């Protein structure tokens, strides 16, 4: 057994224990760790934003030659955000918001259509290359049927009776399998994190493993 002498390891270990103290009940140690985490994360994000985005994409193009003076427009647009601090000029925030949200909406439409709809449908279609063996044929048919049934389950504009109702029932079977698999996967991910933390406490900190 060789306990770590690094102040950093001790700090990490104490913070870990402070968070785990929540398993007993909500207490000041947990809340302290929670607020430290919140503050450090925000400070970290700000630093990354500064070095990875503001400096190379704003400061350098604007203040170093060749100057990109056109960047003054988004800066002015961004400064309108501060209008919210005054009751008289609070409406100014609508312009940067409209620019950002509207632009992002337009940007996302073709990407969403491409990756979330067309590619998904394309990959599920029954094409000859999917019927190379008995197993791959069964799988291809199952994927197609499962996708079709899931879509029917989420279609609420038609009364669920006869064949339509039966297809929706098949859909829920597939959905439950998917949710079960997702749940199992999430549990395993959390447990592997827990094992990682335990390993840190027992190996890196206390040195008993």
């Amino acid at each position: 057994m060789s306990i770590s002498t690094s102040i950093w390891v001790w700090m990490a270990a104490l913070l870990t224990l402070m968070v785990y103290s929540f398993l007993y009940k909500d207490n000041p140690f947990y809340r302290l760790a929670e607020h430290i985490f919140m503050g450090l994360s925000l400070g970290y994000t700000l630093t990354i934003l500064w070095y990875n985005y503001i400096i190379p994409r704003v400061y350098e193009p604007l203040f170093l030659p060749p100057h990109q003076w056109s960047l003054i427009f988004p800066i002015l647009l961004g400064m309108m955000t501060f209008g919210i601090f005054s009751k008289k000029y609070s409406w100014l925030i609508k312009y940067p918001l409209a620019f950002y949200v509207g632009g992002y909406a337009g940007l996302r439409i073709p990407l969403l259509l491409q990756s979330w709809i067309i590619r998904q449908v394309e990959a599920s279609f029954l094409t000859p290359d999917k019927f190379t063996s008995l197993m791959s044929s069964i799988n291809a048919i199952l994927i197609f049927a499962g996708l079709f049934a899931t879509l029917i389950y989420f279609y609420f504009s038609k009364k669920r009776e006869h064949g339509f109702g039966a297809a929706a029932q098949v859909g829920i079977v597939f959905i439950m399998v998917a949710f079960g698999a997702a749940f199992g996967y999430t549990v395993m991910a959390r447990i592997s994190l827990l094992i990682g933390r335990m390993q840190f406490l027992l190996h890196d900190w206390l040195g008993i493993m």
Partner: protein
Amino acid sequence: MRRRLPVIIAFGIGFLMLIQYFIPHPRSEEFYNVIVQQWFIIIFAFMYIFALRSFFMHHITKVKRKKEGYIFSAVAMVSVLFMLLSGLITSRGPFFDSLYNYMIAPLQGTMFSLLAFFIASAAFRAFRARNVQATLLLVTATIVMIGRVPIGDYLWRGMPDLVEWIMTVPSMAAMRGIRIGVGLGAVATAMKIMLGIERSYMGGE
């Protein structure tokens, strides 16, 4: 005009961003790069300052009024400044990296691992096999959990293959269906924003 101009701006820039995707021309790519990688980031940075101001105002008010747990608000504010200053003063040097590796990363890992305990109790309540659907969820989750660890392979050689099949066939079929639904919903919402039907992001008009 105060109400119409933002809607016109949203439509105009949204439309330009939409059509640039279909125009394979260097000018179109340049437009994309300037708007997305510079203009959006600048506006986002200003919004971040606004969010930061809200964060500090909330916590300063708590400290000033000495509300319950105000000491934690002070800790949160000091933590932000400490991390930010250590990043700026050391230019993201070893001290800044250590703060990340020995404080943020362990805290994040521990917070998420905490869920392992609560997920177990939640699973106990949710997985009581009350009907066919709940049983299906329970059985699938159990197979996936066991099949992803060595004991699954030890119990039955075919377990890892079964898990792989569940993930790539029935689970994927349903996930694709859900994804298509989400995609259609997102496209519809984006269209509503562009056309000015959805304006709640501008203050609930």
